[in-house]
Each structure stands twice: as structure tokens, then as C-alpha cells.
């Protein structure tokens, strides 16, 4: 089984809705690898609102997302959809 490569993307200290837009641009850049399940995108942010909007947006694009709290913010993991 192929190992999933983890891409990291940090968005801190942004005015709304910059966090979401920057994150989505990164998702778009990696969309083929993400769909094929080769890559998992780890988005780190200090914007609480983005933990609701980013997962919703990427789910609408056919990906899956998990949200986790960390020491200095939130981790949103985006990976291939389950189907």
C-alpha cells in the first residue's frame, strides 16, 4: 500500500474570509493528488470560524475533512472522499 504524503499549510493571523480562500486555493492546487488519495492536506489555523467553513467547503468538493484542536490553534485534515 502506498504511503499517503502529508502536505502542510499554515494560515494564521488572517482577516475573514481570507483563511477560507487561502485554504481552498491550496486544496485546488492539490486536488488531483487529493482525489487519488496520494496526499493529505494538513491545514493549521487560529481562526475558529474556519473550522466550520473549510470542512463544509471541501466536503462540497467531494473530499473528506477532520478537525482537531492543537496547542496553538486548529488542525483541519483534508483527504480523499470516502466513496
Amino acid at each position, binding site marked *: 500500500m502506498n504511503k499517503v504524503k502529508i502536505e502542510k499549510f499554515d494560515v*494564521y*493571523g*488572517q*482577516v*475573514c474570509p*481570507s483563511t477560507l480562500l487561502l485554504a481552498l486555493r491550496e486544496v485546488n492546487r492539490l486536488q488531483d493528488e487529493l482525489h487519488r488519495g496520494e496526499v493529505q492536506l494538513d491545514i493549521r489555523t487560529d481562526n475558529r*470560524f474556519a473550522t*466550520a467553513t473549510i470542512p463544509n467547503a471541501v466536503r462540497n468538493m467531494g473530499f473528506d475533512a477532520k478537525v482537531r484542536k492543537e496547542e*496553538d490553534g486548529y488542525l483541519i485534515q483534508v483527504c480523499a472522499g470516502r466513496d
Partner: protein
Amino acid sequence: MFPVLTTMLLGLFLGLLAGAIMQRSDFCMTATFRDFFLFRSTTLLASLLILVTLSAILFELVRTLAGTESFALPVFGVPSLVTVFGGGLFGVGMVLAGGCVVGTLYRLGSGSRLALWALIGLIAGSALYAEIHPFWSTLKKMTSFGPQTVTLPQWSGLPPWVFVLSLMVATGLLIFWRPQTFAPLPGWREMKGYIPPLYAALALAGVGALSVILYGRSLGVTTSYAKLAAHLEQLLIPGHLAATPFFQTQTPIVFPFVPGPLIAGPGPTFDGIAVMQYPLIIGIILGSALSAWQLGEWRWSAAANWRQTSSVLVGGLLMGLASRMAAGCNIQHLWGGLPIFSVQSLLFLAGILPGVWLGGRLLIRWVLPENLRR
């Protein structure tokens, strides 16, 4: 003094409640309108509609049970066309600031550095309004129209329940036709302590109704920003403060549980505005801070770049200016005014929509990181 102190303590409690609910749900009226224009997202708009409809029912219930002829009416004043302009300017301001006058408070409470800049802007904008107040009041009188009444029920002569019932039916039909618009986003249970905006709207409608019982009017905070500006001017330029007519304006304010009217105005005195708004402001900041701390999420946010920081400062300034131009902010008009069908609040809404759209364009063109500008 005792009733005043009790009113202030109860107000602090209301503020704490509102701040905590807003922090948990990120109930952001800026995102409500902005994300509709930018992403065609209607989730938050649906929550706002629920807040307005439920508030209309609760406010009317309180009014009927308390047996008072009307409440909160003088705050909005008679219709004037300049309110559309004020609403528009406010819309631009709140998008640039990334949050409204109350959003700024709950974000500050949970540790947002940007919110601090918005707050400075709000105070500066209120001071700026004081300078143009005489001119603006004249303009406001010149563009006032219709019969000199505050609400649609007064204007039409129909009883308020006709309007409340119509709103209930309209909202009910929307829920029936588009139930998925009103449902919380899938996956909301994954975040500990997250309250979907829809549930927050239900809770906030309750907070608003308690405010009407306690103060005889809906929540408001913006006159306090003018008061803070007045206090600063008193320290720095007392001569100018004394010569600025806006800071001398006073209107009596009556609270149900405080005997006799209190004077109230934007001047640097401890008056009815301070009794009502100071505890609310402190409460919202503290409530949000406690809520974030309890979730283990309280932290100062990272500093933003100069472009975004100046955008937030300018946005705050526009909001401070516009909320005085429009006789109230988004909270007063959309949460307090729409539920009683205040014509001024409808005019404010008519202005805020194009304002938010324009704000979104400006944000994308000038403020967001270069590679995001389309």
C-alpha cells in the same frame, strides 16, 4: 441606587450569555451577508431570519404582557432616506473590519488582535461623526419622509400581530420549502463546544427578549463608543469637547425597573447609556473570553500584515461613523428594529446589502493576499 445596580448586574449577565453563545457559534452578522455575496452561502442568512422571526414573536409577547403601548421606539426615530446611506457605509465597514460592532467584542474576548484595531477604529469613527453631526442632522431632517411614525404597524394603522403573523407564515413556508437551508452544517458535532448558528439564533432571541424586559428596548452598544471617544477628548482636548454640540445632546431614557427617567447621551458622563451599555460590553468580552478559556481555546491570535490591519482599522472607523449616521448599528436595526418592523431598520437593511457587496469587492481587490485577487 439599588435598582440601577441591579439593572447593571443583570445586564452584565445578559452580556456574558450573549458573548458565550456568539463565541461558541461564531454568530457573525458580517459573514451572514458577506458570504452570501462571495460564496452564495445561505446558512447564516437562514439563522438570521430565524432570529428576526422569533424575536418578533417574543418582543410582541413581552409588549402585550407588559401592557406597554410601545417600546424601543425613540431609538430608531422617524424614517429618513439618509439611513440607506448610513446602512451602506456600515456594510462596507463591517466587511473591511471582518466583524460588526458586537462581533468585534466577542472576537476581542477570545483573543483576536485584529478586533482590537477594529475597536480603535470604532471609537475614532464615533469621534469623527461628532464633527459632522450638525450638518448630518440637517440632512436627516430634510430627507425624512412619510407620516412621522416609527414602525410599519403605526404607519399602516394595522395591529402589530398582523405583521408578526405574516413574518411567521413567510418564514414557515421557507422552512417547509427549503428545510436543508435551515439545517446545521453536516459534521458540526465534531468540534467540541461548537453551537450551530441556528441554535445560537434561538438562544439569542431569548437574550434579546430578556433585554426588552430589563431595559424596555433591544440590545445596543454603539453609543458607548461615542462615549469612550468623549472621555478621550475630555482628557486630551477638553475645550474642543465642550464646543462640540453632538456630545451635549441628551434624551431621557426610561428603564422598567429604575424609578424615573435617566438622562442619556454620548457625552462623557455616567448616565442611562452607561447603565445599559457598559455592562453589556464588558459582559460580551468576558463571556466570550470565559467560553474560549473553558474550551481551552483562549489565545492571542497571530498578528496580521499591515494591509489587513489597516483594512480592519478603516472598517471600524466606517462602522463607528455610519452607526451614528444611521441612528444605530446592525445589532440595533436587524436584531431590535426588524422584529418590530421599524421603517428606519428596513432602510438600514436596504443600504447594508449593496454596502456589503461593495465591501466584498474592495476586500478582494485591495486587502486579501495578492494571489487571491481575481
